[in-house]
């Protein structure tokens, strides 16, 4: 069931983050990127929306410790199942990363290795967490390509990233991330590089996989309209803070002027306006 705070009998949520701070330290100068973000995640689709620079991707990367060394991560709690992500050793993190938590990156063009066949890249994801023969990994990769609805997986397996389209590339990324059967998937703008029609297919696929496998999904996006229809719950971030957290179905009743502004700024097919309202930012949003 999708519930942000599971019943008492159900033990703890999948992921529990409290008061997460990320600072980028450069000599004596420290730049805050994330300032006190708290959320819990069950087996649901949680969206993090906000403009570029609001810290949404940094939250995702902090969970996997994918940030550069100059980033200082602090939190009062960062618990994933039985693992304390905050104090996990690098070896422990390597075990978790890709296997139990995986991340789908924004642009398949830049996140796939250009000189390795896509099938081999998917198989590699499996082999780095499971012992076994190459042939077995290949079979799994082919099966996974079928799951992500790629026609003719045998042929696509042999292709290089530049030979496949953007939609196919994103499916390959999804296949690579799901082959290890993770419990939590972080999707960082998985559809912003895609067309409208392909976007729908990729979303439908993610939706099916989340339902079928009971995953937790963190969906990072700047498209509030997309998120409203796709996710269960939405965190709205501004300048490193969560300014509002609400159910996706209640976005129409958003209280915070930033959320309202984001929604009003979207051009609407049915209500033509001569000018789009531009977001007016208030200094008070930084601290409130």
């Amino acid at each position, binding site marked *: 069931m999708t519930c942000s705070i599971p019943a008492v009998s159900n033990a703890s949520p999948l992921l529990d983050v409290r008061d997460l701070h990320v600072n980028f330290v450069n000599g004596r100068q420290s730049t805050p990127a994330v300032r006190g973000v708290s959320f819990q995640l069950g087996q649901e689709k949680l969206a993090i929306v906000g*403009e*570029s*620079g609001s810290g949404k991707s940094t939250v995702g990367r902090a969970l996997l410790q994918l940030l550069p060394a100059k980033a200082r991560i602090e939190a009062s709690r960062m618990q994933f199942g039985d693992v304390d992500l905050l104090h996990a050793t690098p070896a422990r993190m390597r075990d978790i990363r890709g296997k139990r938590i995986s991340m789908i990156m924004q642009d398949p063009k830049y996140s796939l290795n250009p000189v390795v066949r896509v099938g081999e890249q998917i198989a590699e994801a499996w082999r780095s967490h499971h012992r076994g023969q190459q042939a077995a990994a290949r079979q799994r990769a082919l099966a996974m390509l079928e799951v992500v609805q790629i026609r003719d997986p045998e042929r696509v397996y042999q292709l290089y990233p530049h030979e496949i*389209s*953007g939609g196919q590339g994103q499916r390959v990324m999804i296949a690579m991330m799901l082959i290890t059967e993770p419990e939590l998937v972080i999707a960082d703008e998985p559809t912003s590089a895609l*067309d*409208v*029609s*392909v*976007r*729908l*297919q990729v*979303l*439908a696929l*993610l*939706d099916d996989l989340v339902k079928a496998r009971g995953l937790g999904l963190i969906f990072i996006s*700047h*498209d*509030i*309209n*997309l998120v409203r*229809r*796709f996710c269960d719950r939405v965190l709205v971030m501004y300048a490193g803070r969560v300014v509002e957290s609400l159910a996706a179905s209640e976005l129409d009743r958003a209280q915070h002027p930033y959320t309202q*502004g*984001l929604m009003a*700024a*979207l*051009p*609407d*097919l*049915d209500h*033509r*306006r*001569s*000018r*789009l*309202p*531009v*977001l007016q930012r208030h200094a008070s949003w930084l601290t409130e």
Partner: protein
Amino acid sequence: MITVNNLNLSFGEESARSQVLFDVNLQVSQGEIFGLVGESGSGKTTVLKCLAGLFNHWQGALEIDGQPLAHCIDRARCRRVQMVFQDPYGSLHPRHTIGDILEEPLQIQGIGQRQQRVIAMLEKVGLNRAWQTRYPHQLSGGQRQRVAIARALILEPAVLLLDEPTSALDVSVQAEILNLLSDLQQQDNLTYLMVTHDLGVVAHLCHRVAVMQQGKVLETLDVPTLVSNRASMPYTRMLVEASRHATPVTAH
């Protein structure tokens, strides 16, 4: 203002030949904002590149302002047609200052009073003269796209070709750029030919729109017809439906 007649384009030779545009016909009148929509690979950007002179081996006839376009790019053409590219992160020279970037077209064309023109243009797109000495990496995505628009407009062209000018930007910044484009168009009565795959943007900005699929123009229609779902082609109606109800369920 813009006439495209039976535009054909192919790449490769003999057996490797692949045709990407098939008899494309478009008519855009003076002061109109015309949208080109379709999925990736449908040839929208290619049409723009033919008009801008970035592809020169096309067949057919292209006219701007009643004058046929040659198969080469020259100074006179640059003053009539300019293009704004999709990705503001890739279309500005990383080691030229904003001032240099804006001044270069003026230098090439031998136009005087460059400094004043650059400052006036920066102000027109909502930046001030202090930005002149900065480099592109010091600017945000929205500011870079403003510079790209300024660079296109500094030669005072009558026609602006826009290749997904907002797809690399955030929703809130997109609103600013769309407002800017609409203001500039009204001030100078410019003609826009805009490529996009976002029908929300089309409905907001454009007057008429052509739908492309696999290198062909499926249909040309005005925006009220498009949004009221009276398009004749099922593909067009599918596109409209897809942008209206972006629920994963409808994709099945």
